[in-house]
């Protein structure tokens, strides 16, 4: 599904290496703060330059700009343009040009799937935090890319709402054979939705590890980060 082949990210003193393949499903990306989780997502998304290769379904995408990669990203914040309506925001996932009637119907359909039926005409500022997250999910959904990256887009929500959004993301985004790669600080999030875990530690990305096995017996560095169980 997603292969990082001899990938090396260098930014000043910071170095992160990765050489691995993950399959479809939900994969959690864990590791201490500053280890490079968000940077790895930015590299896969095409926002920063790297050496090595990024392959999606066997196709080399390293030279492609972000929009042409088979990858959709949900950022930590600013996932919606505040000056555009929800329907316009979601529609941008299809095309920046004026949408045809069929595409508009698809936007409405996707909005209904994430529970925002009839709210397409509103601006993001008129929605609650949870509804804004649903709209961002809807946009990632219409983009319909095989790889979806989640850089903690729900971290500003309360625990209950966050769990609800993770369930929704798993159900709609990771379906249809996609890979959903999500950064998380919270082992409970990983336990809730992820089958496998990539570990970012000491300048290296390892995995995929089986989530249950890893969290049952974490390596010392991860144990130090997670704290006493």
């Amino acid at each position: 599904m997603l292969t990082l082949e001899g990938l090396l990210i260098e930014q000043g003193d910071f170095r992160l290496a990765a050489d691995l393949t993950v399959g479809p499903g939900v994969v959690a990306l864990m590791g201490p703060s500053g280890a490079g989780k968000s940077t790895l997502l930015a590299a896969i998304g095409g926002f920063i330059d790297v050496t090595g290769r990024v392959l999606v379904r066997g196709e080399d995408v390293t030279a492609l700009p972000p929009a042409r990669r088979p990858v959709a990203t949900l950022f930590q914040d600013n996932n919606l343009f505040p000056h555009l309506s929800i329907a316009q925001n979601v529609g941008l996932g299809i095309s920046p040009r004026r949408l045809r009637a069929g595409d508009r119907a698809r936007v409405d359909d996707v909005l209904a799937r994430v529970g925002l039926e009839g709210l397409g005409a509103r601006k993001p500022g008129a929605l609650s935090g949870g509804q804004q997250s649903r709209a961002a999910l809807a946009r990632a959904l219409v983009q319909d890319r095989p790889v979806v990256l989640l850089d903690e887009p729900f971290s500003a929500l309360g625990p209950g709402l966050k769990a609800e959004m993770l369930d929704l993301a798993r159900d709609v985004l990771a379906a249809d054979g996609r890979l959903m790669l999500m950064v998380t600080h919270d082992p409970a999030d990983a336990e809730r939705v992820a089958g496998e875990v990539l570990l970012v530690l000491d300048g290296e990305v390892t995995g995929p590890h089986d989530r249950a096995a890893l969290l049952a017996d974490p390596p010392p560095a991860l144990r130090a980060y997670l704290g006493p169980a």
Partner: protein
Amino acid sequence: MSLTRPGLWAAALLLALSLGTLAAVAWRAEWAGGLGAADWAAIRFTLTQALVSAALSVGLAVPVARALARRAFPGRAVLVTLLGAPFILPVVVAVMGLLAVFGRRGLVSDALATFGLPPIDIYGFEGVVLAHVFFNLPLATRMLLQGWLAIPSERFRLAESLGAPVGRLLEWPMVRATAPGAFLVIFLICLSSFAVALILGGGPRATTVELAIYQAVRFDFDLGRAALLALVQFGLCALVAAVAFRVALPDGLGGGLDRVVRRRDGVPLLDAAWIGAAALFLLVPLGAVVLAGVAGLVDLPGSIWAASLRSLGVALVATALAMTLALVLALRPGAGVSLAGVLPLAASPLVVGTGLFVLLYPFVSPGRVALAVTALVNAMMAVPFAVRILAPAVAQAEATYGRLADGLGLAGWQRLRLLLLPRLRRPLGFAAGLAAALSMGDLGVITLFAGSDKATLPLEMYRLMGSYRSDAAAGAGLLLFGLSLGLFWLFDRGGRIGADT
């Protein structure tokens, strides 16, 4: 479509307008003649008045800004907003207000007469400095107030709890960091003063270089001498602008000045006196303009309405041009472009006007292109301000939404339409308001070109003042004041309405 390529064209146009016109002027200069005694007097006067004006403006702004920074009182927000008003106030209107207060037949002279004292006369050096302080004291006050409010309130509390001297510990270092930039900006503004000197100065003892250029072209038709003076003026401005380019310039246009740090130091009565004096100095001349203007509105000659329409047209064209140039410059960060963005500060309008005069004179009668040239030069002069307002907003929009736009493949026109223009609405409206008001009230290059017809409203008003029709001039002044403020308000408001943040 690339968003960065048009920036090169805009930079090229601004370079041609500032340096190209200078070259045209140099080509016509008669090098054998050299500078005469009158020219040296003009240079001396220009430097002296700019020095004194800048020093007085910044020096007086320190106690006023300090008082505003530490006192909360009803009407403070209005007063701080009013401090921004002189920037968009037409020079000729302000000078009329100052004459109504400080002139031979003004309020102060009347008051002196009741005590049997002779009236004061503000024509000459004193008048020029007075007008420059009127315009720039508020600007300096806003710049310094920005500096005061940038000191975190915790530091004042810390200093207070330690019993440390707030002035020496916190305020003096801030003033020392802010004041030189404010001084340079105001010095530069006063250096290219034309309209103030045109109305209040003149004669061998009170002529600025800009005014001397105008007189050489208009009265003596001595293009060679005008060209030489234009080179001198460009050299002076470029020198100061080059120094200013290295100093971090404080910002006098921004908002967020409505915060007060509660403090216990200082004498409240003294602060009140400073604030009161500054407010009176600002408001009484403006009040005089309004009062005299209302009475004069019935006296307006028919030519005023045609001139108003011409001025509105010039202002709208200049605004559209200035905003286009500023936007494409702001979209293309880089040293060459930022130089093109500040170069108009060094190129004085009269120098550019003279250059265009030299270039166009063989082909068309200057009177026929007067309005077009005025709009072009007005636009050019507004670009540096507009770029300073737009560039940070572009950077902010890119920093916040750039990756999202990249991820969605928004490039070129789509990025401009869907991301940048909506995010820039407020700064675009504010900058367009400034450009429109500046152009509306400009009395500069038009004086070089205009014949008896094709006058703009400021020029028509100046002519009424010159022919001692003071009632009609006052009416025209109020109209001009209203149109300038109205244009600013419309554009600024247009940028705010429905802008989702």
